[in-house]
């Protein structure tokens, strides 16, 4: 646990009783430059935290008790009750999965042993990406590469600000670039109307261009850009309400750019067949790379979703939506989507893990539910077993994989509470099974 009196990292001198270089697990960006202090009321984000970070770190988690059917019990009794339910279940569904690497490791081990299904609460969004990855693949980049290299940033149909409040500050409007002592201003292009541009400001921001189409039609614009680049433009005067001339102008910009980066956040593409947008962007990026350079950058990955997808992939071969009921991993991203399974009455036990934000409550279901949750988690009714667990990076240490699927960061034990780790609870259950 962090020793608050001497725990400064050796960077800039922090305020007294504050620690620096703290990694934040409350969205997929995992900013690691936060400064926090602690007083008798709890943790305070004193520097570099966005509103999500403040809400996440400064929440009061004291006093939560394990419960069985809404009655307080001790932890051992709750673990026993959970073990009994899992032992009895013929198809437990392990959902939520808002946790860090060790947490998801423990879920995988338990799901393997108990013959269950694993799926993350935000898989629906992630699968907009995975489907494209598994069909055509893509050319991608990462946060530091974008921060230093991108001269044009194209935001495709998603409200980045809402999901990742510090994206523009940390990646786009940055003072320095490795490639030039006097880096040029950047062009930011929004495809889609009504996207929050309030944070797109500052000395590095040059022109801001908007192609104002409806969000569910961004795919058409992206398709038209590809067609132009392939040399097979459509003859229409406008596409999704955007004049053809504006599309041609954007194509010229892309061709003369050194390193345009197309940014989207799959959870923000919230309409039917949104994976087709991801697919269209990937095709466009590939098209550009025949002659020029360009890359994609997919955001999202909140609530530990990236860690869950990665660990599931390296341990089972598949990025979630895997059933271990037959004793070996059985993958079907439609069939083993937990929301679909619950709606169709499949599975006889829901085991829900959400250790970051209280919003990630379990879905309403008639089957018995075990919840390992951060205190205050939204619950429609008292679950069969509730075990309050710590948040990795606040109540205990851990590691988490960042949204670009490359960097992972250590999460610190800030000593916010003595809540147990989900991985210890699942580990105990696995041993007892």
């Amino acid at each position, binding site marked *: 646990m962090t020793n608050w009196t001497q725990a400064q*990292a050796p960077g800039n001198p922090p305020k007294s009783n504050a620690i620096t270089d703290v990694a934040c697990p409350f969205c997929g960006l995992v900013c*690691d430059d936060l400064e926090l202090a602690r007083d008798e009321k709890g943790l305070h984000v004193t520097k570099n935290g966005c509103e999500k970070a403040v809400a996440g770190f400064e929440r009061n988690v004291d006093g939560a008790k394990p419960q069985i059917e809404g009655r307080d019990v001790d932890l051992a009794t709750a673990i026993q009750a959970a073990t009994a339910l899992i032992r009895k279940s013929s198809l437990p569904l392990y959902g939520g999965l808002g946790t860090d690497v060790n947490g998801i490791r423990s879920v995988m081990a338990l799901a393997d042993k108990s013959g269950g299904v694993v799926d993350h609460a935000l898989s629906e969004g992630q699968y907009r990406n995975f489907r494209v990855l598994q*069909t055509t693949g893509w050319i991608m980049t990462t946060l530091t590469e974008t921060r230093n290299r991108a001269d044009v940033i194209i935001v495709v149909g998603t409200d980045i600000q809402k999901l990742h409040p510090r994206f523009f500050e940390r990646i786009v409007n940055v003072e320095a670039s490795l490639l030039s002592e006097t880096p040029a201003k950047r062009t930011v292009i929004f495809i889609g109307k009504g996207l929050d541009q309030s944070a797109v400001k500052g000395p590095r921001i040059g022109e801001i261009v908007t192609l104002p189409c409806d969000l569910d039609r961004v795919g058409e614009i992206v398709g038209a850009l590809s067609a132009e680049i392939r040399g097979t433009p459509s003859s229409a005067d406008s596409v999704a309400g955007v004049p053809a001339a504006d599309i041609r102008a954007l194509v010229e910009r892309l061709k003369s750019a*050194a390193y345009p980066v197309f940014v989207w956040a799959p959870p923000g593409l919230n309409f039917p067949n949104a994976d087709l947008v991801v697919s269209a962007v990937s095709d466009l990026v590939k098209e550009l*790379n025949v002659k020029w350079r360009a890359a994609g950058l997919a955001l999202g990955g909140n609530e530990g979703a990236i860690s869950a997808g990665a660990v599931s992939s390296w341990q089972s071969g598949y990025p979630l939506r895997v059933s271990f009921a037959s004793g070996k991993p059985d993958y079907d991203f439609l069939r083993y989507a937990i929301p679909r399974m619950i709606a169709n009455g499949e599975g006889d036990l829901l085991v829900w893990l959400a250790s970051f934000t209280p919003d990630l409550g379990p879905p309403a279901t008639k089957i018995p539910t075990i919840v390992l949750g951060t205190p205050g988690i939204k619950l429609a009714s008292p679950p069969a077993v509730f075990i309050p667990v710590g948040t990795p990076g606040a109540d205990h240490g851990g590691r988490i994989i960042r949204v670009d*699927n490359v*960097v992972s960061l250590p999460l610190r034990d800030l000593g916010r509470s003595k809540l147990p780790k989900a991985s210890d609870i699942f580990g105990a259950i696995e041993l007892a099974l």
Partner: protein
Amino acid sequence: MLIKFTGGTVYDPLNGVNGEVRDIYAQDGRIVATPPPGARVDAEYALNGRVVMAGAIDPHSHIGGGKVTIGRMLLPEDHQGHEVSRTELMRSGCGHAVPSTMTTGYRYAEMGYTAAFEPAMLPANARQAHLEMGDTPMIDKGAFVMLGNDDFFLRALAGKKDFSFIKDYIAWTMHAAQALAVKIVNPGGISAFKFNQRKMDLDEKHVFYGLTPRDIILTLARGMKELGVPHPIHIHGCNLGVPGSMDSTLATIRGAEGLPLHLTHIQFHSYGTEGDMKFSSGAPQIAELLNQTPNVSIDIGQIMFGQTCTASGDSMRQYGNTKSSNPKKWVVMDIECDNGCGVVPMKYRDKSYVNALQWAIGLELFLLVNDPWRIFLTTDHPNGAPFYYYPHLIRLLMDRTFRNEMLEKLHPGAQAATILKTLNREYSLYEIAIMTRAGPAKSLGLRDRGHLGAGAVADITVYEDNAQDREAMFKTPLFVFKNGEQIVKNGKVVKVVAGATHVVRPDYDKGIEKTLREYFDRYHTVKLDNFRLSDQEIVDSNCGHTGGECGCVIVQPSGPRIS
């Protein structure tokens, strides 16, 4: 605990033992010369007629890190039908081209391997690489950290920084990323691709930094030597997979200036441009030069026919290779002002002229390079083929009749374009033991592995001798011991253990952290102290809840630093 292995036929090249019948004693996990007087033998294995070697060591196998997992995510159809059931002891998984981590560990052990090394760990991805290796049970692990395409290094070199500064940076990175050695992939080319440069020959300049691959290779080669890192700079050279790549490979060997180099998966860099297909074997010329160049070692990266998935840091060349992608889907990435990667599925076909000749080129190299201490047996898993083809590959090397039978099934044009048929060499068991144990251990600086002398860790593999079918022999060892404990019997796991992680920690001047900290603060999205991996993280990683015991970090000694 004292164990006696009685009467086996021992092949232990590091101690000069070539097929002699010997007794071996292991006490508390280590081999001892003779048991202490009066000591009681707790367990004895009668091994008469059996072949005894140290546990095998794979010096180049992509077992952990982001690109391998991208490969896993990319190819669900390749896992399907190859799922592996959970057992009382083992976790479930899958295993074809890119097996899941646990399955990888079990399969290595079941094949008599007790260590495998990840050769392409990106500094930016080091934590994940170690996490994945932590989920790979049974075997010892370690990783080579990729340098020489990262902007910090290129800026330092282009800015003519002091060589001691560059060495401090190399050493600091090895510490921070917990590495055993250093690899360079397409020297400068990964970075150049980010500037839209599509090709880089040994003396071609990087468009932005003005450096050539030759500059970068020599800097790192000298760096390794002067830092006292046992393994020489591990080079994935220029022009991966390009017809004509033999020229830059020959030039790289000639340009070594006497410095130790290791050229990895050299098969993929040994192509000429002769013949109607403009694709020919450069193996004879390369082998001839290697035979005269004792400072250069190689591994092959043998291909085998079937579906696999190539996963490389070489974004520049892998982008070029996407035209051969099968199935037609692939991933290329630019990564963190650090590195890149390219993941491209491949299906090598024996009826394809090019693929058949690639197969023959690998075998030509194996048979033409004389010194088994400088050539290691690899398929560059999973790039040439998955690692579990090794027993088949060993048979190809040990059994000329079998090899020629295989050759006759291939594309006739390729048969005509290879001299393989004229090569009569058959590897001996002693040479196989060199190539798969003693050589890699020596090259990597694993002083207490890869041999059976007193003081060595008791990682021991016992085979039933089978001269008729070496593939069957090497596929199903009778016993495998890890740290003196039996972990495999008759080719099946009987006990799950965690392996250790090997690192090397050359000296450096801590003053470099000031410069690095500023650099991280100014340009990166990760803070220096969060970038660095602690020992504890690796130990924790090895603590799975199912089976296994804590794996530890083993610091292998480095030599003295020169200035």
